[in-house]
């Protein structure tokens, strides 16, 4: 019936405004091992609990977000713009 996602740019919006891509993984570097690429392209965890996903606010600000949500309770713990710092730091 409803589920609200706290977009850091637009505030709380219904899930219908978003497109979900799936697990928020770091793209391997160009020359990375084939195994890393297989992990990135095909292999997914299926945790019961905290999970980070890419959501696109398609019918809003059109920004890609990283949504940290609990797969069991649907609780959204955090939601940040995918271009914001922490990802870059992660890779550094």
């Amino acid at each position, binding site marked *: 019936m409803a589920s*609200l996602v706290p977009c850091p*740019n*637009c*505030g709380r*919006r*219904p899930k*219908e*405004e978003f497109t979900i891509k799936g697990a928020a993984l770091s793209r391997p570097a160009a020359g990375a091992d084939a195994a890393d690429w297989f992990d990135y392209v095909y292999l997914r965890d299926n945790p019961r609990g905290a999970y980070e996903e890419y959501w696109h606010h*398609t*019918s*809003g*600000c*059109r*920004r890609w977000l990283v949504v940290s949500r609990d797969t069991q309770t649907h609780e959204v713990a955090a939601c940040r*713009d995918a271009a914001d710092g922490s990802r870059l730091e992660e890779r550094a």
Partner: protein
Amino acid sequence: MSEFRPTHRPALGTKQTVSSAALRLSPLPEGTIIHVLAQPGEQDVVSFLGRFTKSPAHAVRPVSPGQWFIVHDEPMPHQEMKSLFATLEPRATGVDQSHGRVRIRIEGKMASRALSKGTAIDLDPSVFPIGQSAVTLIGHIAAHITRVGSEAFEIIVLRGFAESLWDDLARMSLEFS
């Protein structure tokens, strides 16, 4: 065919204004809409853009982080727009969306009630005051909403969806008309 003068056909040209004591729905003239995309890290782009607007009230409308619409009722001549785009660089890029987007006005004391049939955003003036903009779904169609008066909103929608959104808005307004 240099003597030929192309004629403009408004997307909502066949739509009649819906009007009642509680609500009025009307197509706005297809003037100018410029999509401004700022270079990352630019500060205070709004006041920078403000210098280029003709009609001061609500002419610069936020779209998303680093993006705005500049809106005029009148079309802007090609050369004028080109030089405006040149002035914006390098701080921002201008993209002409005067034909890509269509504006609709909805006003009256039931305007926000009618819009709430489509959008999940809270349109209460305490939360969504005059001058505030948001991109949101209205029913199945994404649109940009700005509160331009205490009981008046302007909607900017993709041209291809304009007729469909108009029909939806007219349906949503039916009980107040």
